[in-house]
């Protein structure tokens, strides 16, 4: 009896960690749980560092987290004042106040840096269906900035993906992706996104200061900050329309 019991305990101890451990996909799902809000609004700033120079752009963002993500972004810094973005799912339109013209951003232009930053329109628009495009695996567990992290690796399983490989360091406790490396098809590291600061707002752990570093250029990065974050504020659907964009 004791022999069988001992064997059972050993077996349980051997397989238990693998039973309890999360898979890469489960970790990704838990990350998405932070997005269980109906709407979000905030004031933000985007500081673009190129060599020793820095340019700051300020913006107001309002977004509806419906089936299709809807967002309206209005720039408030003097140079871009009145410039507005309308994002409806994977579509993006920009309104230029001086020309009083709306331009649809599509195709190759989506890959360009947003307002000259290191964040592409595509990075900003990316939907969450990563599991349909990538094979997700838990590669490792390691500390990052004194936080214990899961290291998950996303390998493209289709050709139509922005990055062939992505590596994320996900906080084991808060399930916030503290760092992400984005790789080219050739394996070259292209961009590194890092969370510099998080805040707990209404029980949600929100990265309020993030940084995107372009590895193809020396001293080129963009720091994005969020302030006055409000969740589930009532918003009119009409706000997310072409008519409002031109207003």
């Amino acid at each position, binding site marked *: 009896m004791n022999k069988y019991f001992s064997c059972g305990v050993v077996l349980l101890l051997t397989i238990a960690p693998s039973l309890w451990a999360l898979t890469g996909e489960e970790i990704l799902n838990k990350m998405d749980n932070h997005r269980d809000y109906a709407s979000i609004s905030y004031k933000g700033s985007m500081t673009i560092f190129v060599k020793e120079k820095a340019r700051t752009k300020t913006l107001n963002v309002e977004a509806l987290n419906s089936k299709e993500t809807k967002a309206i972004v209005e720039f408030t810094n003097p140079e871009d004042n009145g410039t507005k973005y309308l994002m409806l799912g994977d579509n993006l339109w920009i309104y230029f106040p001086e020309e009083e013209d709306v331009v649809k951003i599509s195709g190759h232009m989506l890959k360009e840096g947003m307002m000259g930053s290191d964040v592409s329109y595509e990075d900003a628009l990316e939907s969450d269906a990563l599991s349909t495009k990538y094979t997700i695996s838990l590669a490792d567990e390691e500390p990052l900035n004194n936080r214990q992290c899961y290291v998950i690796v996303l390998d493209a399983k289709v050709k139509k993906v*922005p990055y062939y490989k992505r590596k994320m360091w996900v906080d084991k406790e808060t399930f916030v992706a503290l760092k992400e490396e984005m790789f*080219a098809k050739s394996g070259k590291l292209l961009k590194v996104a890092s969370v510099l600061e998080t805040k707990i707002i209404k029980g949600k752990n929100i990265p309020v200061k993030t940084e995107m570093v372009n590895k193809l250029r020396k001293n080129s990065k963009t720091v994005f900050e969020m302030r006055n974050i409000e969740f589930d504020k009532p918003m009119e659907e009409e706000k997310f329309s072409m008519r409002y964009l031109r207003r």
Partner: protein
Amino acid sequence: MNMLIKIAFRNLLRHKWRTLLTGIVIAFGLWIYLFMDSVMSGLDRGSIDNMINLSTSAVKIHTAEFDKERESFPLNYGLTNIAALEKHLAGHERVKACAPRTQFLGELSNYEESMPVIGTIIEPKQDSMVFSLTEYLKGNYFSEHGVNEIILGKDLARDMNVAIGDNITLFALTKYESHNAEDFIVIGLFHTTDPTLNKSGAYITFKDANTFLDLENTVTELNVQLKRRINLDDLEQDMKQVRAYIDKQFPKLATYTFIELGAGVLELVKQKKAWGVGMTLVFLLIAAVGIVNSVLMSVYERVREVGVLRALGLEGREIVRMFMLEGTMIGFFGSFVGVLLGCITIFVLTTVGYPLDVIYKDMYVDTAGFPYWGTIYGEWNVPLIIGTFLFGIATAFLASIYPARKAATMSVIQAIRFF
């Protein structure tokens, strides 16, 4: 009348030097004009040829889908019927060669900084049959077995601080719009007459692009080179004919000729020609003053002779006719010699050319907004040649009216006593 012609002709022979000098003035003026017109036309043509031979080609074929988005150089609207197109084009007598190309937007990085580039994917052997990149190349052209080779614009290479033999990272989106970056070795640098190409042009091969951009041999444009025509108008006619020939067999494709692709340059050339006509009129007015002066001088030289002729019974009308005949004959002689010299010069210009680079060394000429160097080839302009010939005679004829009348109105005594 015959007698007057004989007298006028004998007078010209009697005053050989004066006749010769006046004729030379006319001939020289007309010759210079024809020479300049041919050179200027050749310069404009040279710029147009350079554009055709470097980037636009004479005729360019895309798919209609690509055409709608061509400003963003999409890689997913390739031509599917290249072989059939090439076979069809080979059947046209004016087609010299065809070459596939695919262009893409990219970024060149040395990990210090990055520069945007317009990448061109080529099939090296075929491409050199249509485009003249190799004429402007320092270093090597693509080798058969080379891997990840790149040819860059000289200015771009300078900005990126790379030289032949160095490695550079090229960043671009694949056909499936996935980011990719790959190291390429710089095998050659080009310094063409197109500053944009020098500043942002990069060439790689289809062989390398198939791996780098998941290209799967996608060809977004087929470029057609036509056989050389001396005159631009003839070339434009050929382009229209070839486009109609393609449209007939492949109506769904988007076919463009240089007439559309280089519309801005052609418009500029036309404006320059209109300006040139104005300048020509001024030039010819000066020439006309010269002719009037020359004939007038001959009248004053021969005032006493006019007096004798009047004393012998020649009427004023006949004196006028005689002097006008002399002027016209000088005009004919000068125009004939001038146009003959002009034609010889144009023949040399159209066949041998005018070696601008040898004459001006490192300098270049800016024409139609595009710098030009190398050898300029002249152009034949038959209506202009005929017009110039007739103008020379007409100017001499008109220029002799005033001095002839002046001679005819002199009294016999006044004329004989004239010193």
